[in-house]
């Protein structure tokens, strides 16, 4: 809309229909929102509804020929051992990854907060795995875990040689199978995820720590509180909102775990024996390898409900109102 320069004489001539200022503003607002709202409607909300819809129908390329099945796929999920495995694995991933990230992330952030020199360097080092593509991460770790060539097994062999030589052979640890052992594979993958995501948590906690007004620490110190007491009674309660944020974000990300699981065992995805299979990976296999579109959609609806319930529960249980 052409706008007259500020010093232009008032417009004369034909009287035009005047829009009130409010109406004009509203029209502009709708004009600005037109494309974005089309985006959200067509590419976010419609597909989400469509996913639910697909989960109720037998798949066919022609929409007219999709037969309504009701809750058949949801009943099928109840008796699908592979899905149960994926669900258990995903919850196990969350149970390992989320607390590990919380504790390690907070510890590193507190340490970083305590140093001044080299802080940017340390911060960059801890953050760098976060910006590395999962494929690259997985290749390196897959290699480090390798049974015959891996760093870990070589370290174990060296350690065992050492303790045998100094006369303490009972301290030796035999080489491990790691990713090839169905019992060890899931924790091994979880460790990779923690390593990769830790930097993000550190940055969040560091920001939270630096947002706490110093006067609280000074007041506590004057009252005779030691470092541990200050951490327990000042840092932890005031950091609660940041901790809730961190837990919720990392839980949501972990429940959708896909990249690392796929990449670390590319030839036997989710293996060995489905021991690392996540819900997202199972959904991917169903939809894009086996073309069971309807059933795969039902699994995504399950994932959506799971994320929603867990997030709401966490917000309910963890959130404490702290005013400062």
């Amino acid at each position, binding site marked *: *809309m052409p706008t*007259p320069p500020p010093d232009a004489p008032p417009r004369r001539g034909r009287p035009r229909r005047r829009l009130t200022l409010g109406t004009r*503003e*509203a029209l*502009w*607002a709708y004009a*600005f*929102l037109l494309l974005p709202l089309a*985006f*959200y409607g067509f*590419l*976010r909300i419609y*597909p989400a509804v469509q*996913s639910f819809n*697909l989960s109720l129908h037998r798949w066919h390329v022609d929409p007219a020929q999709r037969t309504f099945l009701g809750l058949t796929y949801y009943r099928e999920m109840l008796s699908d051992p592979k899905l149960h495995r994926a669900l258990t694995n995903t919850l196990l991933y969350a149970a390992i990854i989320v607390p590990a990230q919380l504790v390690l992330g907070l510890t*590193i952030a507190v*340490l970083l907060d*305590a*140093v*001044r020199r*080299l*802080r940017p360097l*340390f*911060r960059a*080092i*801890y953050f*760098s795995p976060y*910006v*590395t*593509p*999962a*494929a*690259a991460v*997985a*290749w*390196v*770790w897959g290699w*480090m875990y390798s049974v015959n*060539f891996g760093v870990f097994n*070589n370290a174990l062999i060296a350690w065992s040689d050492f303790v045998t030589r100094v006369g303490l052979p009972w301290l030796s640890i035999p080489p491990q199978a790691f990713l090839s052992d169905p019992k060890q594979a899931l924790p091994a993958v979880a460790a990779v995820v923690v*390593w990769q995501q*830790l930097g993000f948590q550190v*940055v969040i906690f560091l*920001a*939270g720590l*630096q947002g706490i007004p*110093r006067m609280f620490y000074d007041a506590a110190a004057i009252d005779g509180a030691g470092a541990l007491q200050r951490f327990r009674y000042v840092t932890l309660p005031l950091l609660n*909102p*940041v901790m809730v944020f961190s837990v919720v974000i990392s839980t949501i990300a972990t429940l*959708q775990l*896909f*990249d690392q699981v*796929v990449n670390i065992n590319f030839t036997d995805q989710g293996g060995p024996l489905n021991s690392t299979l996540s*819900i*997202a990976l199972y959904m991917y296999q169903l*939809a894009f390898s086996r073309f069971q579109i309807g059933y795969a959609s039902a699994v*995504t609806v399950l*994932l*959506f409900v799971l*994320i929603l319930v867990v997030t709401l529960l966490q917000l309910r249980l963890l959130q404490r109102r702290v005013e400062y």
Partner: protein
Amino acid sequence: MIDLETFGEARQRPNAGTVVAYVLLAVGSVVMFFPFVWMLLSAFKPIREIFQLTVLPHVWTLQNFRQVLFQTAFPRWFLNSLVVAGISTVSVLFFCSLVGYTLTRLRFPGRNAIFLIILSTLMVPTEMLVIPWYVMSTQYGWVNTYWGLAFPGLIPAFGVFLMRQFFQTLPRDLFDAGRVDGVSEFGLFWRIGLPLVRPGLAALGIFNFVGNWNAFLWPLIIAKSPAMRTVPVGVALFSGEASTQWNLIMAASALAIVPVLLVFFVFQRQIIEGVVLTGVKG
């Protein structure tokens, strides 16, 4: 704005605790950085050395990089990733800030409802959208196109939320003054609003670039032809093309990290500030 580097420095005096902190951080850094360093160094090893456990190569070679750059489709994947991350970053910066601006600075019926609708899409996991997206893409011919790769990330709800937070901190008088001076509504956004939220734009742009560069699930689905793969998908599928050539995989991975590391080291400050300013302080 709080200066993160020097804020609260006065209370610090070197003591035993600080020394312990340095030692622990250094040990942690070694653990965090070792896989990186090893990958980078392995990329310079000739293939016969790749399985040896020495950290430094006996013979340094650029052969792996040469092979990746001239005998694989890697350069094309790199270009694809740049195009996709570029398109989406431009779109994200423009639209997320435009929507964020409109939702805070303009008054109109349905404003809160629209914000809530956009926010509610945050709860829907990508996994739930990829199947309908793929069905749509086959229908409209978006498979194997840049549009197909880029469209899911054009206006992320998180970006709208972030930019809305930024625009909320600006005083209303500023825009009223502009309006009195006859600045158009778009001009108020473009010439007055945008320059004032630069820190937000920087953080959003960087996070978005890195996120798109590393995106995996959707590109894996939509890039059916090898020529349309992005770097993460291409490197992941290397196993098919270079089955046991670990040296190539290491070299490709090393190259794949370069742009994000560059972005991170150049914009480190903005990234950290962006996280602070998102309001995680609570």
